[in-house]
């Protein structure tokens, strides 16, 4: 064996910081090779993918708009995943938040009070939490696997949304397009800047970031969630309430996803459409793990994910790069990031010479 991995015994602090850098270098290197093989200038392509999208203020604001729902969903998922509750249903929870918020918004289009927005955001958040609550109930009452139930609830949520935009919530004056009416001004999230679509939802995300960080790193509830995730028997041994913690982590997770959904419809979109989410809830799963379930890490990984989304789109438009290639590049980056993490727990060891194995002697039982 020329290269072998040896367990370090404990995490290497140095590699904790170096592994993302190593991954970045590997991705840039392999990405360049890929682009050269396809006949594109690697420097120009990388520039279009990673730098051009955020080279002006509008670009940055688009980045934030994209990153916001991913960040909110991923923060919630981090709480659930710390408890080893595998909530795959952020997508459905997001859609239901958007749907419930819209259902209220189209009925109070004429309401001018600023409470309209507060009410809509609250309803959206609660709807997301309730959708996750279904998963929690199935898990704690019937011990149903939350991975399966939350995935299945995603499809139910999507079809509920489609039914509503084609039916009860369809804009009567909308020429039969599957869309709701535009929300009233009082129900829209105020913009932060004149030019650009970034809205006050960014503050919610920052607030959620701090709250989740305090919950997971500083609070005793977060400690209980962590213990439950790492070692169920120890949690039972000291009397932590398992069901209550499962409910809590799923409700937080669903609530934040619901908030992300309602922020999309009251923010950049302004109405309910079938394509509320291009898969934010699924992207958030990757983002949560990339950020190592740490709120600060998740902030960076959600920005990275948003950049890859936007960069991929602009490379398609300006360089005629097929979508498959940009997705390949995204996949490469995620692969290297996760693969480099092996070095946190293992030390590579290079043996320059093949070690000689003792020759195996076979002795026949009959010869004895």
């Amino acid at each position: 064996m020329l290269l072998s991995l040896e367990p370090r015994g404990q995490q290497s602090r140095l590699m904790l910081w170096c592994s993302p850098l190593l991954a970045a270098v590997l991705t840039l290197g392999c990405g360049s090779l890929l682009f050269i093989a396809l006949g594109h200038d690697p420097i120009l392509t990388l520039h279009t993918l990673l730098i051009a999208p955020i080279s002006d203020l509008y670009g940055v604001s688009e980045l934030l708009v994209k990153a916001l729902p991913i960040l909110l969903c991923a923060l919630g998922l981090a709480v659930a995943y710390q408890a080893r509750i595998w909530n795959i249903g952020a997508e459905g929870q997001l859609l239901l938040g958007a749907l419930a918020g819209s259902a209220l918004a189209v009925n109070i289009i004429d309401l001018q009070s600023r409470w309209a927005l507060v009410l809509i955001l609250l309803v959206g958040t609660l709807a997301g939490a309730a959708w996750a609550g279904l998963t929690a109930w199935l898990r704690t009452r019937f011990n149903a696997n939350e991975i399966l139930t939350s995935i299945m609830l995603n499809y139910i949520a999507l079809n509920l949304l489609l039914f509503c935009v084609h039916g009860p919530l369809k804009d009567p004056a909308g020429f039969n397009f599957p869309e709701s009416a535009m929300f009233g001004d009082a129900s829209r999230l105020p913009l932060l800047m004149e030019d650009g679509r970034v809205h006050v939802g960014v503050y919610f995300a920052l607030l959620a970031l701090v709250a989740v960080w305090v919950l997971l790193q500083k609070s005793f509830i977060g400690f209980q969630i962590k213990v439950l995730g790492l070692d169920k028997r120890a949690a039972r041994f000291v009397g932590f309430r398992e069901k209550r913690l499962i409910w809590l982590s799923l409700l937080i997770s669903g609530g934040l996803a619901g908030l992300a959904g309602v922020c999309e419809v009251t923010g950049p979109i302004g109405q309910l459409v079938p394509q509320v989410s291009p898969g934010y809830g699924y992207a958030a799963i990757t983002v949560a793990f990339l950020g190592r379930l740490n709120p600060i890490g998740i902030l960076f990984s959600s920005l990275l994910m948003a950049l890859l989304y936007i960069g991929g789109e602009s490379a398609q438009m300006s360089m005629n790069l097929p979508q498959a290639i940009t997705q390949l590049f995204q996949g490469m980056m995620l692969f290297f990031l996760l693969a480099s993490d092996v070095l946190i727990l293992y030390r590579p060891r290079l043996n320059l010479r093949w070690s000689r194995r003792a020759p195996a002697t076979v002795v026949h039982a009959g010869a004895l």
Partner: protein
Amino acid sequence: MPNPVPILDPTPRLQLRNISKRYPGCLANDAIDLSIAPGEIHALLGENGAGKSTLMKIIYGVTHADSGEMIWQGQRVTLRNPAQARGLGIGMVFQHFSLFETLSVAQNIALAIGAAAGTPKQLEPKIREVSRRYGMALEPERLVHSLSIGERQRVEIIRCLMQDIRLLILDEPTSVLTPQEADDLFVTLRRLSAEGCSILFISHKLGEVRALCHSATVLRGGRVAGHCVPAECSDRQLAQLMVGDAAALITDYPKVTGANAFLNVTGLSWHNPDPFGCSLKDIELEVRSGEIVGIAGVAGNGQDELLALLSGEVPLSRNDGATISFAGQPVAHLRPDARRKLGLAFVPAERLGHGAVPDLSLADNALLTAFQQGLVSNGLIQRGKVEALAEEIIRRFGVKTPDSQTPARSLSDGNLQKFILGREILQQPKLLVAAHPTWGVDVGAAATIHRALIALRDAGAAILVISEDLDELFQISDRLGALCSGRLSPLKATVDTRLIDVGGWMAGQFDAPQSLAPATV
């Protein structure tokens, strides 16, 4: 005295030369030499972590040595897997049995020795014959889950004997047996030895090694510390070889009588929903402040169930609440954290994964059970106080660790146990329940743990120790009892109890429940 070695053949059955095996961070075996003659019963002695397990896994082909050679009846061999070892005539009985509980004895044996040997039905007469020949009563049709631990061990041994066996390796075989069962096992082993089968007997119990074995190899820190004839050595000499320092040897602690009863268990019966688990019947138990009560018993006789009911991991309904009480207050319906508030501290049998979370730091593991000691305010963890507590545990109980941020999994068994016990003791409990407190712990750490328990007793706490180690129970407990199939024998003062009495209780030889028996102590 052991029987003399029957001289059949002058070439050794097995010879090891210079066997070394390195694991990351430790040299498990360092140039080990060992020679076993045909028919010899050879003891492999050593503390936990001395390299005994690694060595026997190498002999059985489970792991491979980095260097050195193995010579089997004069011929050099390299074993690649256990099947090849079995082909040579090497059999092994592990400490933890590998049997299917829902299958019969014959089916289990047929599965292990392969289809060529015949169907379970065809094997039955041979199993009967082997069990008769070696004095190990066993019914081939019985289902394994209905067997006692001793009987299960017989299944494992007979499984080895069904083949042409030349070397039998036994890993701490008596740790799961009552003293009487152990004596029966020795009869079988002597008979095997007389027929020319070599036996490698791994143990750390000096008494039985002296009674059974012709010779011994003592390992310490992965090296051979010495070879000797156990019958000619004193306990002190053997311990000196094993530990290198005989200062940590057995001390006598004074026996005391407790004050008022703190823990009261009356008429506790509990039906286990697990069909292969043990149900508890009419448990009567009283532990007084300032005494240590020891409960002996072979594993699987209701210890785990009793412990779970005492800790609160299995709560009873409110109606049954009165069957367990702390200082007169019914607690059986309370959750573990509520019981801790009333003064309970608990040291579970399994350190990693039950008593401590392997991936969390020692500081976090201190918080795990001590969170009601002012370490949390307004829902936030007081990091400073948690760290101070962890540091104090590490200092006062001599836990060897770089710092309090080290994850629990990287500590040795003995060190982690000292930490867990320290964590519980520093909470100044009124009742400490400790399960197998020194199981798998080296002599030095065991002595520290015993001293800490005695000090806690003298400070006025009620202590209940459940253990399989009779020497330990006799050494530290003031009153003794034993569990057998979910029933608890009456407790008796240790000074009035003989080893053979406890052996009888462990086998179920008691009938009067405590309430009817004349007052003990």
